[in-house]
């Protein structure tokens, strides 16, 4: 085994490994999914966020426009405050928009469904740091079952 051939083969080995890493980076992991592009933050208060997690998607009609940046509890009134990081490409949502926490499929991940409101005169667009007033909480299955049983019992 001469040294030249060894070097070429080792070089091919390293190149193969780099190609595999690139494939993992570009095709498998979602490294680039959030970093590119400017974003702005909106806040929304919910009564109950259910199973929402940081980095869950924010969707408008099924199109992902942003991600959940942070979830915290308001120290004053003890309600969860969700920070939504929205891509700056979509910066013309009117103030009358509403958000709700939805589930994709029966057992799927929870995400924030963003429902753009009507823009009529006198309604401004949402800007960085604004609170979205109209929110709908996550559907908690246990509450639903409890309510159902309660109603059955009172019949």
């Amino acid at each position, binding site marked *: *085994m001469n*040294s030249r051939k*060894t*070097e070429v*083969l*080792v070089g*091919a*080995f*390293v190149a*193969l*490994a780099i*190609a*595999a*890493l690139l*494939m*993992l*980076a570009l*095709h*498998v*992991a*979602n*490294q680039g*999914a959030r970093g590119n592009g400017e974003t702005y933050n909106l806040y929304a208060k919910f009564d109950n966020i259910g199973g929402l997690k940081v980095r869950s*998607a924010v969707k408008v009609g099924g199109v992902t426009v942003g991600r959940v940046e942070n979830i915290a509890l308001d120290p004053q009134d003890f309600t969860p405050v969700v920070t939504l990081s929205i891509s700056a490409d979509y910066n013309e949502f009117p103030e009358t928009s509403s958000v709700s926490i939805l589930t994709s499929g029966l*057992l799927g991940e929870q995400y924030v469904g963003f429902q753009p409101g009507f823009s009529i005169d006198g309604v401004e667009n949402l800007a960085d740091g604004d609170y979205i007033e109209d929110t709908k909480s996550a559907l908690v299955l246990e509450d639903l079952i409890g309510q159902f049983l309660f109603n059955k019992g009172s019949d």
Partner: protein
Amino acid sequence: MEWLARLGSATLARFSAMGRATFVLTGALIAKPQPMKHIPLTIQQMYVVGVQSLSIIVVSGLFIGMVMALQGYTILVDYGAEGSLGPMVALSLLRELGPVVTALLFAGRAGSALTAEIGLMKATEQLSSMEMMAVDPLRRVVAPRLWAGMISMPLLAIIFSAVGILGGHLVGVDWLGVDAGSYWSIMQSTVEWNEDVMNGIIKSVVFAFVCTWIAIFKGYDAVPTSEGISKATTQTVVYSSLAVLGLDFVLTAIMFGIE
């Protein structure tokens, strides 16, 4: 009294072996770098340790990915969740199977060869004659092999995971008919670069260090007879495998244990 003495001598032997292992490691790693002399030696060893292990890694990666896709599909399809096949295959490969199976195969394929080679060098007194010529065998023989192992194994683990994911694609998408779009897109939205890919690579670096260290130390410390070398080779494979599996639990607990 007799068993007490035996317990004591066994403990002392363990500790002195650990001391010698540390001595071999520091002797090989801590020295003035001589890139002109040692980089060609390391490349030569990377050929032996890395390139020659490539075929077994690629074939096992392909088949493990294929088997996981097949097994995962039969369970997931009952829940109509066969779209989650991609993330299942990718996450299990990147987090666990890639680093661990690569390390186990590496211990069997390359670690045993390293032990036998260094052990035979010791038995045929090549190491002592190097010392006679004022060449430090730790730096000339051991260090290039250590570096080659530590560089090659993470690369092998990356290739293993990538090939496994392609194997899963082969069975899941091309054969069983999972939608190719959902295989890749749900995988992309689930797999995190830092959380999953980088942690897998960190794992394989740790395993590489441990496996190569054990292999080299067992060879360097072997009783220089044919029986001693065969025993050292066996111990390399056994100890490396146990160390990898034990460390894997510890690393997983640190990395993924607490949300």
